[in-house]
C-alpha cells in the first residue's frame, strides 16, 4: 500500500505563451502510515504535486502508481482513487454549499454510493474526529467561524473514509490558536487511525513538530527529502530559496556558535528546551545571579 511517483513532470498551459513547468521530474515514494510534510515556497509546485496524487491533474510525462497499479491505465477506477486518496484543498471552506454542516459532510459519502444511513454514520464519525461541537451540526455552514468552517470542510473529505489524507495548507488564514488546534487534531487523527497523511505547507514551524518526514519542493523539483533533522541541517540552503528552518534551529545554532554544548538537531520546541537545560546543567553557576 503506497503511492509512487515515477519521474513525474507537469507543464501548465503547454502550448500557450506562458507555459510553466510546474513539476520537473519528481520521483517520490510514500509508504503506508507515514506522516509527510511537503514544504515549499509559493509557486514551488507543491499544490500541483498533490493534485496528481488523486488524479485531478494528469502528468505531462511520468507515471503514478497507487498500491502498485498505474493510475493512468485506461481501466483504472479514477473515482475510486478519489475516495481512497482524500484531498482537502486550500481554503476548503470555499467549497461548502449545503444548508447545514451535517448535510454538507454527507455529500462525499453519498457521492460514493453509500445509502443514507451509512453516509450519516460516516459523517458523524468524521465530525467527531475533527472535533466539531455537536450543537453546530445543524447550523448553516456559512454562519460558522473561520476555524469551524475549516473543520467542517475537512470532515467533508474525512467522511469518505480515505486511506490517504492530503491537506493543502490546512492552516492558511487561521489565527495562531486555530492553527495549533487544527494541527493537533490532525496529529491525533494520525495517531488514532494510522492513516497516511500528507501535509502541504510553506511554514517549517507548522510541520516540524508533527511529521515523520519532510519533502522540500523548489521550482518544481524535490530539493530535500528526509527526516526533519536531516532537512533542517541544510538550514542555510533553505534560507536561500526563501524558506526558513524553525526558530529553535536558529537559536540553537547561535548558542552553539557561542560555545554552548547544545544539540543543534533538536527540531521541536520541547526538544530544544531539553537540550538547553542539559547544556545549562553542565554550567549552571555561570548563569546564576
Amino acid at each position, binding site marked *: 500500500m503506497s503511492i509512487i511517483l515515477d519521474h513525474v513532470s507537469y507543464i501548465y498551459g503547454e*502550448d500557450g*505563451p506562458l507555459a510553466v513547468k510546474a513539476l520537473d521530474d519528481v520521483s517520490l515514494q510514500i509508504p503506508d502510515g507515514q506522516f509527510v510534510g511537503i514544504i515549499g515556497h509559493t509557486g514551488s509546485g507543491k499544490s500541483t504535486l498533490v493534485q496528481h496524487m488523486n488524479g*485531478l491533474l494528469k502528468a505531462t510525462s511520468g507515471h503514478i502508481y497507487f498500491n502498485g497499479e498505474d493510475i493512468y491505465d485506461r481501466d483504472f477506477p479514477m*473515482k475510486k482513487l*478519489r475516495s481512497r486518496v482524500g484531498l482537502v484543498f486550500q481554503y476548503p471552506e470555499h*467549497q*461548502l*454549499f449545503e444548508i447545514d454542516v451535517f448535510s454538507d459532510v454527507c*455529500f462525499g459519502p453519498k457521492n460514493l454510493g453509500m445509502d443514507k444511513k451509512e453516509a450519516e454514520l460516516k459523517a458523524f464519525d468524521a465530525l467527531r474526529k475533527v472535533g466539531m461541537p455537536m450543537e453546530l451540526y445543524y447550523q448553516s455552514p456559512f454562519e460558522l467561524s473561520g476555524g469551524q468552517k475549516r473543520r467542517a470542510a475537512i470532515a*467533508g473529505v474525512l467522511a469518505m473514509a480515505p486511506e490517504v489524507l492530503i491537506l493543502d495548507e490546512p492552516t492558511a488564514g487561521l489565527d495562531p490558536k486555530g492553527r495549533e488546534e487544527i494541527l493537533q487534531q490532525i496529529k491525533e487523527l494520525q495517531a488514532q487511525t494510522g492513516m497516511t497523511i500528507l501535509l502541504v505547507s510553506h511554514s517549517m514551524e507548522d510541520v516540524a513538530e508533527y511529521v515523520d518526514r519532510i519533502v522540500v519542493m523548489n521550482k518544481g523539483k524535490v530539493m530535500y527529502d528526509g527526516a526533519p533533522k536531516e532537512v533542517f541541517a541544510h538550514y542555510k540552503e533553505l534560507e536561500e530559496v526563501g524558506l526558513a528552518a524553525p526558530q529553535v534551529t536558529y537559536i540553537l545554532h547561535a548558542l552553539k556558535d557561542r560555545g554552548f554544548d547544545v544539540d543543534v538537531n533538536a527540531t521541536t520546541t520541547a526538544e530544544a528546551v531539553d537540550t538547553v537545560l542539559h547544556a545549562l546543567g553542565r554550567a549552571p553557576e555561570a548563569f546564576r545571579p
Partner: protein
Amino acid sequence: MLRDITLGQYYQTESVIHRLDPRVKLGGTLLYIISLFFFRNFLGYGVAAVFLATVIGLSHVPFRFIVKGMKAIVFLLLITVTFNLFLTPGTELVSVWKLTITVEGLRTAATMAIRLTMLIIGSSLMTLTTTPNNLTDGMESMMKPLKAFRVPVHEVAMIMSIALRFIPILLEETDKIMKAQIARGADFETGNIVRRAKALVPLLVPLFISAFRRANDLAMAMEARCYRGGEGRTKMKPLIYQRRDRLGYLCIFAYLAIGITVGRLRL
C-alpha cells in the same frame, strides 16, 4: 478544463498591433465588421481575408491560438450553416428524401459561414491584442460625447473593466471549486440533463458566494482609496494618438475603400 476558453482573452506579446491605440483597434474592428455585411460577392471576402491575415501576421499571435478560441462557436456555426443550407427556397440542386439543397441555400450558407468566422476572428484579434484596461479606456474615450445625453460613461466603462477583470478570476475559482468537489466524489459529466443540472448546485452556490465576497472586498478597497466616480479623475496613461495610430486609421480606410469597391462589383 476551463482554461481552454480563449475567447476574449489577452495574448501577451510584443507587436505593432499590441501597441496601437485602443481607439484605433476598436474603430477598426467596428468598421471591419460592418464591411463584412456590405459585400455582394466572394471577392470582397477575399480582400477582407488578406487584410485580416496581414493584421494577424503583424500581431505575432499564433494562428493556432486564435483557432483554439473558435472551438466555442463551432456549434453555433454548424446550426447556422445547416439551417441556411436546407431551408432556403430557390432552384433545386440536390434532393435527398425531404431535404433539398438549393443554389441560393448553398450560397447563403457559405456566405454566413465565412462572415461569422471572419467576424469572430476579427473581434477576438482585438481582445487578444488589447489589455482589458486599455480596451475600456478606449471605450470610455470614444463614448465621451454621450455624456451630453447624461449617459454615465465613466461608470459604464468602470463596470466593464471590472467585469472583464473578473472573468479569469472567476474561471480560476470555478476550476478550483470543481476540482474540490470532484475530490469529494462529485460527478459533473455523466447522467441525464436533470442530474447534471442538479450536479451544478455544489459548484454554483460556492461560486456565487465567492463572487459576492470578492465584490464586497473590491468595493471596500475602492472606498478605502477614496473612489467617488469619474468626476475630476485623471489618468496615469492618457490616450494620445501617435504616428502609428494615424497610419493605422489610414490602413483601415484604405481597406474599406478597396474592399467595398471590389466587394460590391456585380459579377
